[in-house]
């Protein structure tokens, strides 16, 4: 001890039998750590398989599409590279080079392979994503490829005179490498022009940005409405004697116990133009029979039904922060000279902010990704971005675009979450 202080260095601590203390501690804890790790392993595996992997795959899909570079035989699973010759030509010539005879010769060779593999539709579809009408050109051309003879440029133009369209060649050049950001461009209503510069798509084809904006706006609106409706309910629940508040709580939770479809369709029953609300208004003479309110298959329907469905997600966190707030705080404020409004605004309300934050975050995130309700009651202008993602998944089969849209949605939510953390602090979140 005295030695250690004498030469100014702290003496290394050892155990009774002379081993370094740190090492001994590590060894002693290693077993416990291994055990703990083994215990969480199943959960870890579950999360990896069901959550992390699909998201990673989705993100990969959004930047990777091999429709124009690789053919996979459905039966044998054999993978054959396609369009290799034209790829070589693209690599040798810079972007914007006009296609020459050499290029068409390469393309002809590739089409022969496509024909053999019965894959022209697949390659055409990939090009079709960015340039409409290309798929039929590909199939048409492939059918006649075997009979073509040099000069190939003329032969191709014979089949379809669009074959020298610079736009087509720009798309083929991009598609010839599987990795691309073009789907993100498409998801943001952007595209590349012939020179490879990023430009807006035609005005009448700009839908995604508008839809993102609408999704954002409706989600904010719905979040705000659930707050307006949920705050008084939660307050009532929190201040009522327990036996009444438990009963009321059942009413709040009741929607959870009914199927989402039932709830949505019951709103349809209420809101449609021959529905309960309109009938009642007409019956009371407030409304003419010929100008019934259109509350269904538009944004009103989406907002009303989603507000109702998401309300419990606002009420529950609010209730959980309100219940433990001692009534003596407000009493203290009143006795100190505050009117009931001031006492609410300055004493009660600030203490409920963590609940508001949690409720708003929950409702907003759920609303942004909501699918069934807008699909059923939203009509054309009540659709949200998730409906379009579903469309690309199920109908147009442009999975890469669907993935890009979903990834943008995910990024947006993460940014909001980060903002929330910066502004309010995630530690302040109180979910229950």
């Amino acid at each position, binding site marked *: 001890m005295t030695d250690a202080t004498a030469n100014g260095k702290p003496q290394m601590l050892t155990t009774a039998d002379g081993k370094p203390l740190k090492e001994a501690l590590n060894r002693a804890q290693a077993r416990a750590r291994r055990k703990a790790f083994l215990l969480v392993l199943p959960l870890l595996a579950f999360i990896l398989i069901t959550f992390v992997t699909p998201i990673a795959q989705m993100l990969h899909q959004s930047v990777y599409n091999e429709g124009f570079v690789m053919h996979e035989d459905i039966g044998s699973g054999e993978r054959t590279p396609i369009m290799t010759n034209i790829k070589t030509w693209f690599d040798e010539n810079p972007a914007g080079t006009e296609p020459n005879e050499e290029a068409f010769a390469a393309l002809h060779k590739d089409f022969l392979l496509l024909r053999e593999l019965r894959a022209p539709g697949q390659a055409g579809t990939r090009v079709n994503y960015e340039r409409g009408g290309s798929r039929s050109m590909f199939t048409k051309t492939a059918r006649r490829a075997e009979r073509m003879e040099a000069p190939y440029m003329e032969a191709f133009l014979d089949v379809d005179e669009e074959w020298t369209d610079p736009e087509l060649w720009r798309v083929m050049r991009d598609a010839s490498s599987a990795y691309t950001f073009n789907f993100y461009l498409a998801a943001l209503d952007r595209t590349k022009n012939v020179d490879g510069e990023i430009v807006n798509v035609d005005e009448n084809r700009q839908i995604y940005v508008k839809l993102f904006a609408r999704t954002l706006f409706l989600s904010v609106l719905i979040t705000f409405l659930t707050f307006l409706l949920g705050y008084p309910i939660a307050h009532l629940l929190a201040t009522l004697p327990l036996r009444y508040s438990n009963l009321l709580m059942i009413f709040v939770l009741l929607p959870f116990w009914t199927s989402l479809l039932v709830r949505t369709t019951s709103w349809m029953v209420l809101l449609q133009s021959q529905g309960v609300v309109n009938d009642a208004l007409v019956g009371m003479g407030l409304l003419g029979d010929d100008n019934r309110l259109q509350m269904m298959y538009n944004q009103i329907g989406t907002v009303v039904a989603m507000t109702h469905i998401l309300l419990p997600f606002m009420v529950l966190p609010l209730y959980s922060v309100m219940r433990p707030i001692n009534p*003596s*705080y407000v*009493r203290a404020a*009143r*006795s*100190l*000279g*505050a009117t009931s409004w001031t006492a609410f605004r300055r004493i009660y309300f*600030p203490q409920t902010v963590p609940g508001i934050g949690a409720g708003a975050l929950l409702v907003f995130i759920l609303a942004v990704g909501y699918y069934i309700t807008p699909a059923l009651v939203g009509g054309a202008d009540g659709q949200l971005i998730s409906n379009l993602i579903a469309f690309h998944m199920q109908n147009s089969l442009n999975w890469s675009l669907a993935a890009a849209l979903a990834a943008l949605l995910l990024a947006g939510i993460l940014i909001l979450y980060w903002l929330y953390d910066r502004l309010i602090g995630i530690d302040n979140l109180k979910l229950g």
Partner: protein
Amino acid sequence: MADVNRDDAFVVFDRVQKSYDGETLVVKDLNLSMPRGEFLTMLGPSGSGKTTCLMMLAGFETATHGEILLGGKPINNIPPHKRGIGMVFQNYALFPHMTVAENLSFPLEVRGIDKSTREGKIKRALDMVQMGQFGNRRPAQLSGGQQQRIALARALVFEPELVLMDEPLGALDKQLREHMQFEITRLAHELGITTVYVTHDQTEALTMSDRVAVFDDGRIQQLAAPDTLYEEPQNSFVAQFIGENNTLEGVITAIKGDLCEVKLDSGEIIDAKPVNVSEVGQRTRVSIRPERVEMNRSRLQAGAHTLKAEVLEFIYMGDIFRTRLRVAGNEDFVVKTRNAPDQVRTEPGQQIEIGWLPQDCRALDA
């Protein structure tokens, strides 16, 4: 003092009744008048209606019947925030999302007091409770005793004339509690504030107050200065509730002037002072304080009468001896004697004779 003239009383409860459910009265016929500057304690067991009285005064509950006057004006229809009453809650009710200084600033802000005046007052209030350094802390970063001080400072910072405190020291440990008792009375007297203090701790009530109102069953059982309360309890509840007390049960056999004769259930006949008994044949509880009983025959004064007793337990407590005796069938008869050279030290099983003066012996209701 006991009967303050209603006209110059500051706080008056006039035949106040309160019921929460319309079936039972929590406060039954409360009459009370307090002069300005008085420190009055409401003392009583839990559930006796003390908090309810305080809440009616503060304006958080309305009296079901009767009138409450503050400074001569009825306040039944004045909302709480206009009553100008400072209040200290049992759980302190410090606003958790504000710092100490913001807590103190709140009553001043809602009164529209400008910033520099506010700062001065906050500083003075914090210094008053010796918490000057803690202005920037949050309540959660303070100990119980410190929170208590802040709650006190907040109730006083806007200079109310009346301060209400509902068991403010209930959550503190014994030593801190005794210290705060002293602090609170000092402040109340220095600032000349009228204080209504609620507690269920009789020591607290006796040491702090000018007057104590003993509550039981929704009524004031006795309202008096601490010494009167202790020495002259008006009924057996007060005698039992305040301080330690020995009771002997019996029947009045005769009343002669300011003394009466009581035949105890065990057969002995003793003299006592009749307090709230008036008829021969009435059952009574005779109350006598442990320190008024003498065990040393030579120290008995003239006129004392004696009774046989058996020692059951002798506890040496340093400054005093505490002896538990069987007297007239009561096995919980306690005698406290000062540790003096001529004092007897007894042993369990010993047969002794004890004695007291008849005027220390009060015949109360049974």
